[in-house]
């Protein structure tokens, strides 16, 4: 376990070297947030609330989901490149579980970005907008736990699609479509409170609302008692399901690689 944590630390330290890129990341998050802030301000047209949702709740939803989208963004062609260039073989020769290593590296990366992209973006946005404070310390803690779980859901979805590089020429198109779908259905671009009911019903059967929406709801204190447990359970169940699907594809892909060579 310690070895894997070391990978996270190394990635964390590497990132410090690419300061300019990360500053750009903050700017990117801010500008993204700003567009939606302006759009919803115009949509609200001064109304105090719509369907029981206030404007500052909407703003909070966006800063959390857009900020996390940016913080969790990573090179999703990683596995694809390694497979096409043949370097995957070197990786598999090393005495560490490649998949675990990938996950811990990405987590280190994500954690770095949350601290150095997301938080500064939040602080800067407070200069011009009102955000909802967390409903309580407990809520904040639950939100943080839920964010980690949400990240794992995202990561596993990404991993599954990356394994398809074993069979496809390029996964770039699929990755792009996947991200667009997640952006829509996870509430990142349209708060799920405003989603038409039929679409919401559909989303409930997918892992998508377990990514950003659960943490947002916890933060705002919209969930109580049994609901909290229920939502955590959903996140964990999805992580497990997605993990095993990823495992199947990964093992099949490796087999194909070994049989066919390079």
């Amino acid at each position: 376990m310690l070895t894997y944590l070391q990978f996270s630390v190394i990635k964390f330290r590497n990132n410090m070297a690419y300061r300019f890129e990360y500053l750009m990341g903050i700017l990117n998050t801010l500008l993204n947030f700003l567009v939606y802030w302006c759009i919803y301000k115009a949509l609200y047209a001064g109304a105090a609330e719509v369907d029981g949702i206030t404007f500052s709740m909407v703003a909070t939803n966006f800063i959390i989901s857009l900020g996390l989208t940016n913080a969790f963004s990573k090179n999703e062609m990683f596995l694809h490149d390694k497979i096409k260039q043949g370097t995957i073989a070197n990786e598999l020769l090393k005495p560490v579980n490649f998949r675990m290593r990938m996950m811990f590296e990405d987590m280190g990366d994500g954690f770095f970005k949350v601290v150095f992209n997301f938080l500064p973006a939040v602080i800067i946005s407070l200069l011009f907008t009102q955000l909802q404070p967390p409903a309580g310390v407990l809520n904040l803690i639950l939100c943080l736990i839920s964010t980690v779980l949400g990240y794992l859901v995202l990561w596993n979805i990404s991993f599954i699609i990356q394994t398809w590089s074993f069979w496809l020429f390029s996964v770039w198109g699929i990755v792009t479509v996947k991200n667009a779908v997640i952006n829509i259905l996870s509430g990142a671009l349209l708060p799920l409170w405003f989603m038409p009911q039929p679409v919401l019903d559909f989303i409930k059967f997918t892992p998508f609302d377990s990514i950003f929406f659960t943490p947002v709801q916890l933060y705002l204190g919209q969930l109580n008692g049994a609901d909290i447990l229920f939502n955590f359970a959903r996140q964990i169940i999805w992580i497990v399901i997605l993990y095993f699907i990823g495992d199947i594809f990964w093992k099949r892909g490796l087999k194909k690689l070994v049989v066919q060579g390079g």
Partner: protein
Amino acid sequence: MKDILQLFCAYAKTGLKSRFQYKLDAIAAIFAVFFREASGIIVMYLALLKFDSINNWNINELLFLFSLIFITYGIFIVFFMALRDFSDWIKHGDFDRVMLRPRGLLTQLVLCGADWLAAFGHGTLGILLFILSANNVGITWNAVTITYYIITIAGGVLIQGAIFLFFSAVSFYFIETQSLKEILYWNVRKFAGYPISIYNKLIQSILIFVVPFAFVNYFPAQFFLRKEDMAAYPQWCMYITPLVGVVLYVLAYAFWRYSLRHYKSTGN
């Protein structure tokens, strides 16, 4: 002239051949770009189911507004991809090769690079949005409106070309501008997608005077739609997009020539 056309066709042929080597992958990628851009529109559509309108623009009017951005971008990226990626060219010394060929430098850059993927992805979306909205927003399509539509598209292409030409010239001085440029361009474009009247004065000024996207879609759309929020701006803004395009392009070109001289005397 014919010779320029021939050169463009030669480049286009190899560009398309290269991109479509794996047909399935190319089509999947085009669809991916299409869907990625469309996701913003889908979300807007769903939001307007709840909110009805934004600053009194309904969904059809918004689609018409969006279509102008996508159509102009689709055309623009056929000619200006090399300028979009210009700082990479300089960084890798690829521009030297351009200088070794007996053709105009800008001519080569404009003719040689087309991002066909983006052109088809954005272009198809733009045309689709236009088809969906053109007859639902109260426009009478006659000789005048059709002509204006065409020249305003051309103007929009020139404006975006001028922006990229300007940034390319800047690359002669500072090579590491790529990520800043990308962030600024793509985010500003996101802002430009919506009627600029929803923003505060500062953002509006940026969209009108600094990176004049307002002239690519908002003001031309107002020419056709005449929404109430146009009252906040001088009326002649609706007519001058083609002029803005030409003027900006000429200015950017002058700056490009000047920067080129600087590059030739300092190298990299």
